């Protein structure tokens, strides 16, 4: 069976010299279907079954719960703003289809742009397709607001992959986390599309009371037709945003009025479970924790970085609590763990092995400093009440320095005893 498929595939193998792009695609597809028949040459005769494909697919697998919840939550937030189906499970089919229709274009655009660029560079440089891009492409939709214009997304992804990754030589060589680079690009180039109170709920003209809902023909014709045929509730184009709705995230509220302002709008369990506005994948804390624990237990992500970050947040949180100069500073440190995107950044962003510190001792320092700077930026920055993106990119820049210091200690110890 396998032999026949291989033979069939080999019949259609493009010429590597004449059609490098096609050949790269073919090679990627072939190695995806079949682990290659390479045998060990020099050195060890047996190899661990772990390879980069398997490492990367586990990160993607751990993200799936976030994808599932994020999809549903897009719909949930949309209907909360309209004052319909306010119970979490009410109108589930509408919320799911609405979220899916919002998420799929983001997902597809990200993958087409990112993989397209990777394939192009792989064929141009003559190496096989590197799997790291799949993780970046899987992460990017989860850290974007649900209403982001697709062309901006495409520009951001292209920037991150070309400048942040391929310019440095591809997977393993990049300095900054590719997913965060795409977000930071959009953040600085198109700040109104990715910050403020307006962008976290999809499908509304604005979040002011009375503004109209935006449905396309897909919702009104296709989905409504389908739901009507099934006898389910349908999308209602006459709805408008209800009084008293705010699209503000807990962080924005905390920035303005401290912890009391947050709890006026959101309950603690809401924030914990993630039924709040935010970037697509970062709201549900238990599901992120499942991913984080999974990655740490499978030794794919470093638990040292994660724990270091928690320690950094606790330390800085206590420090700022003591200071207590602004309402945001008085928010108790333990609330900082689950408001905002701290856990998502901890589990999936800071632990990228390429851009993180590479020595075990360095990982502690790196994680701690991300926690420290993230909290500083989150709380002290007057314009934007979140800090993990910038803190991680900052520490990405300095992680070689941390490693250098750790290694220098080792070197000095060795030289000192000589």
């Amino acid at each position, binding site marked *: 069976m*396998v032999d026949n498929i*291989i033979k069939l595939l080999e019949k259609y193998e493009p010429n590597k010299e004449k059609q490098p792009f096609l050949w790269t695609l073919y090679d990627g597809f072939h*190695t995806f*279907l*079949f*682990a*290659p*028949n*390479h*045998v*060990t040459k020099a*050195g*060890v*005769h*047996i*190899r*661990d*079954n*772990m*390879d*980069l*494909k*398997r*490492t990367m*697919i*586990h990160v993607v697998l751990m993200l799936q719960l976030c994808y599932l919840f994020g999809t549903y939550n897009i719909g949930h937030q949309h209907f909360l703003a309209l004052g319909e189906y306010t119970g979490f499970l009410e109108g589930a089919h509408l919320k799911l289809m609405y979220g899916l229709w919002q998420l799929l274009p983001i997902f597809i655009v990200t993958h087409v742009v990112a993989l397209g660029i990777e394939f192009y560079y792989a064929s141009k440089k003559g190496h*096989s397709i*590197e799997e*790291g891009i799949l993780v970046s492409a899987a992460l990017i939709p989860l850290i974007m607001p649900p209403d982001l214009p697709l062309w901006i997304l495409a520009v951001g992804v292209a920037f991150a992959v070309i400048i942040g990754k391929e310019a440095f030589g*591809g*997977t*393993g*060589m990049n300095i900054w986390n590719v997913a965060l680079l795409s977000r930071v690009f959009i953040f600085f180039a198109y700040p109104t599309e990715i910050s403020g109170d307006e962008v976290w709920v999809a499908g509304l003209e604005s979040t002011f009371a009375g503004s109209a809902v935006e449905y396309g023909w897909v919702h009104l014709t296709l989905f409504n037709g389908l739901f009507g045929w099934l006898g389910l509730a349908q999308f209602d184009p006459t709805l408008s945003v209800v009084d008293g709705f705010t699209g503000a995230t807990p962080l924005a509220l905390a920035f303005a009025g401290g*912890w009391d302002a947050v*709890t006026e709008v959101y309950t*603690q369990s809401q924030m914990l479970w993630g039924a709040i506005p935010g970037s697509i994948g970062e709201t549900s804390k238990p599901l992120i924790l499942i991913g984080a624990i999974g990655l740490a*237990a*499978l*030794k794919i992500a470093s638990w040292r970085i994660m*724990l270091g970050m*928690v320690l950094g947040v*606790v330390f800085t949180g*206590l420090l700022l*609590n003591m200071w207590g100069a602004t309402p945001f500073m*008085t928010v*108790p*440190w*333990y609330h900082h*763990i689950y408001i905002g995107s701290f856990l998502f950044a901890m589990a999936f962003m800071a632990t990228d*092995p390429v851009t993180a510190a*590479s*020595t*075990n001792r360095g990982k502690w320092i790196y994680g701690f400093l991300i926690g420290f700077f993230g909290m500083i930026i989150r709380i002290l920055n007057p314009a934007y009440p979140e800090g993990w993106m910038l803190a991680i990119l900052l520490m990405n820049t300095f992680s070689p320095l941390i490693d250098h210091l750790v*290694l220098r200690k*080792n*070197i000095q110890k*060795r*030289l000192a*005893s*000589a």
Partner: protein
Amino acid sequence: MLMKQNTSKSFSIFSILMLLLFFFPSNVLAQSSSGSPDFITSMIVATVIIVFGAIVFVTDSLLQLEGKRQLEGKDIKVDASLFPKNLNGNAADLPSYIPKDRYLKLRRGFDIKLEGKPEEKIIETPHVTRYSVSPMDFHGIAPIPKVVPEEGDAVLAGDELFFDKRNPEIKFVAPVSGEYIGLERAEKRAVKEVMVLADKEIKFRELPQLDINVAERTDIVDFLKKYGGWVHLRQRPFDTIPNPEDIPRDIFISTFDTAPLAPNLNFSTQGEEAAFQAGIDMLNKLTDGTVYLGLDGRAKEVPSPVFADAKNVEKYWFKGKHPAGNVGVQIHHIKPIKKGDVVWYLHPHDVITLGRMLTERRYNTERLVALTGAEISPNFYTRIRPGANMGELLSAVEFKEENVRVVSGDVLTGKKKSNDEFLGFFEDQVTVLLEGDYYEPFGWLLPQEVRPSISPTFPGFIFPDMEYRADTNSHGERRAFVVTGQYEEVLPMDIYPQHLVKAIMTNDFERMEGLGIYEMSEEDIALCEFVCTSKMPLQQILREGLEIVNE
């Protein structure tokens, strides 16, 4: 080293406390919506814990400093600490034959458990007719040595076969008696094999009497160089044949092998007490320092009296997974190699060979070689000399599969051999394993069979005693470095292997030295190569680095 372990232990205890601190308020969090009482409570708790932790930490550090001061200059390692290592380890369960102050437990490492362990029985194989000494088994000699006998000449076991033109006094001698039947060459005319057609009954060249008690060091050196014993010595760094001008700082011998399917040296050296002791006595004359013996502290079986009762040696006991039995790892923990240091090491079989040169007065390299691997049966030990023809050696066993690879040595460091090639000079093991030149559908996602791996994404860690039938498939393609911290997990040395390898790749000479390239050898980094997710050829890279540094 002890210092470091304790600091990290205190640190981990401290971090667990911090974690508790993190979870503590989440219990009260549900009841109160305003944060202030929780905040004060947690602040108090945090302060108490931090103060307590600080007191413990300072006390522990002071205790360690005091212990270090009192023991300064003495060659004793005592764990002066509030959390002595022995409480955490199971030194309390140590069998009585292991002295606690000479016991080292190495936490990092990985045992690759394969099918085809040798049974502890000796089966005579049919007479092997062809033997060879391969210049390629030695590092640091010219590729084209000067061969002494003419084709067709008769040689005795111990007669000179060839010498390196740069060191003409160091002789490479015939392992068996018979007829010299010529050379085999590799690329660029490099000599690959120097072959002898063996007699049925081996005749030995009689060596002169050497009384080790009265002989000068130079006499012993000349004796070894002239009669073929010298090349059994190996030098660290670089794994080369030692320079006769050098006096080694110390000499190290590891008496157990933790490599996959490795032979049990307790079994394969049985009854060699006299020869082993004679070898040790000779080595003691060659160094001004100490002869160190690394013994098996895993407490699975009592080491044979050959090692346990050896005299004039310093014994250290090691417990741990592979590579705890590697001499390089043991040197690192007993007395690390610094820049400018030269130490020697030997395999126990080579010590016995040197000993026999004194006791039997002949060059006799006969040893028990283990025939291992799941693809042949039975697996047993056989009495043979290194350099024996592989095809003839394996004629006594039955092959279960056609498409196999024969390796002289273990699966991590051995060399692939065809039927026309020969057992390596330093080897006491042959491994036969399946060739893995097959395509596997979605092999990267769901492999069809269980395989050894350090990754918990495979269920292997649930069944630690499971034995695997491994093959030579590389299970993936080569990639750039992505995963970090993986090598450190299997290398019980205070070395950053990934950064060392990167330093070699970028030709950074100073960094190579600083990161400890002198302490590393291919066999030490082999396990890192096995686990490498990016499928890097680490042994090859390390060898290139060693050659650069050696020049």
